[in-house]
């Protein structure tokens, strides 16, 4: 009797564990994160990473400030400009036309980057 109970309990526990792994393991979400990550520019240590990002037309690029100081993302030709971004603040802009869009930080002009829209 005890053996049967132990065996049944083990099967139930194993089933629950397997279910938890399948449900909680984000296999599909991971690929979406990867796709999203390629449209992000991280601002860290006074540099844009990557400094040149190539995206298809109608893509939304998101800048995320990972620095301890504020930054302002501004395009060279006045096409877009963010508000002052604190640490972990984000700014997004959708590029609809193909071309090369140079931008910089208006507070720290030595920080430059480029978005290439294909």
């Amino acid at each position, binding site marked *: 009797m005890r053996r049967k109970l132990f065996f049944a309990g083990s099967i139930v526990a194993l089933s629950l564990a397997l279910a938890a792994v399948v449900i909680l393991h984000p296999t599909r979400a991971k690929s979406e994160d990867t796709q999203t990550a390629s449209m992000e520019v991280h601002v860290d*240590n*006074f540099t844009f990473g990557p400094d040149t990002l190539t995206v298809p037309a109608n893509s939304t690029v998101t800048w995320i400030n990972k620095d*301890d*100081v*504020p930054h*302002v993302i501004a395009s*060279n030709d006045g096409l877009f400009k963010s*508000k*002052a971004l*604190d*640490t972990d603040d984000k700014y997004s802009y959708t590029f609809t036309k193909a071309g090369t869009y*140079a931008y*910089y930080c*208006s*507070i*720290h*002009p*030595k*920080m*430059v980057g480029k978005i290439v829209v294909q």
Partner: protein
Amino acid sequence: MVNPFDLRTILLAKHAQHVVLIHFPIALFITGVGLDLLSRGKRTSQLAGAAYLNLSIAAATVIPAALTGLLAWQFALDGKRLKGLLLLHVIAASIAALLVIASWWLHWRTRRAEPLLLPDFRIPIELLGVVAIGLAAHLGGFLSGVNT
């Protein structure tokens, strides 16, 4: 890339004035305090005269430097809530500005009065001012990215 020789950029860039002007009160105040310490408080010595001149110009230039800092906060940073390094910088800079003006005022008051010796309590005020201005400058360097 912004053209560094473009006049509009130089004169109208929303934060550039503060970064340029702040060097004057920093250098003049530290020099003035150094000269004052060397003068040993003798109001009539040439060193004391040089110290007073430096402290006077430091006190005069600290005002536009502080004003441009406030303008940079308002226009370049959209008046965002102060926090982190920026908050520490503003606190240190405010204390430094007050101590710079207080140091000058002590010297100015003594020169108008009879005593030949400057008051001894000016030394801790001046030294504290040097510490505060040094801290504000150090944090300002991080905020401007020159330390990277």
